[in-house]
């Protein structure tokens, strides 16, 4: 009758032996898809701003669409970076305390980076 020795609850949760399911994999792909669009936008924006002075660059980032896309770009880029760096650390750092410490450092750095970036864009966009 019973063909699977796993607890049915564990199967229903779908978290597997790594205990966190496919969330990491899936988020990495979602942010990748977002970044395909956002990176193209970012490169075009930067190339268009070459040779412009401070006021012009600032005025360009202050435009609503640019400000919105820049915030989206910052969040997606840092999120995607952390997910990628996490895998690299898991694969290559075999000393447990160093692994956990680097994981904490990159995550806190990314949160700080996103907050600083978003605040910077808001200050530019709202003129303060």
């Amino acid at each position, binding site marked *: 009758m019973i063909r699977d020795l796993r607890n049915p609850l564990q199967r229903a949760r779908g978290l597997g032996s790594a205990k966190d399911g496919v969330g990491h994999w899936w988020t990495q*792909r979602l942010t*990748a*898809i977002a*970044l*395909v669009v956002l*990176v193209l936008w970012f*490169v075009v924006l930067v*190339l*268009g701003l*070459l*040779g412009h002075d*401070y006021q012009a*660059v*600032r005025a360009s*980032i202050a435009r609503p669409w640019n400000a919105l896309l*820049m915030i989206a770009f*910052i969040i997606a*880029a*840092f999120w995607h*970076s952390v997910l*990628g*760096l996490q895998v*690299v650390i898991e694969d290559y750092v075999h000393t*447990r305390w160093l692994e956990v410490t680097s994981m904490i450092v990159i995550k806190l750095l990314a949160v700080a*980076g996103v907050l*600083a*970036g978003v*605040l*910077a*864009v808001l*200050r*530019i966009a709202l003129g303060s």
Partner: protein
Amino acid sequence: MAQTTRPLSPHLQIYKWQSQMVTSILHRATGIALAVGSLVILWGLVALSMGPDAWASFHAVAASPLGLVLLFAWTWALWFHFINGIRHLYQDAGAGYAISTFIKASWFSIIGSMLLTLATWAYVFMGGAA
């Protein structure tokens, strides 16, 4: 956790180099480089929000010879990770796994990223000023 002495899988130096392997390694390497590069973008944005002086020091570093070399390298890293990342998304959908297709696609990532990098910098030097 006990440190066991069981054998580990062979590492890089044991394999014959091939394009599929190079693109896989480069995807990670460029990803790490781009994570560092995102901090430079962050510096630029924060400097822009702080005022003309902060922006001027950011601009001076970015436009210095070393800055330009790094930006050139980052441009290639970005385009490689971009093209190869799209290739990964395509493969995640279960397509492109025939060996010949796989090899062609790896070369597409390598050559395509170089061409896009040259095109980007051709625009920088010829069209957009600097």
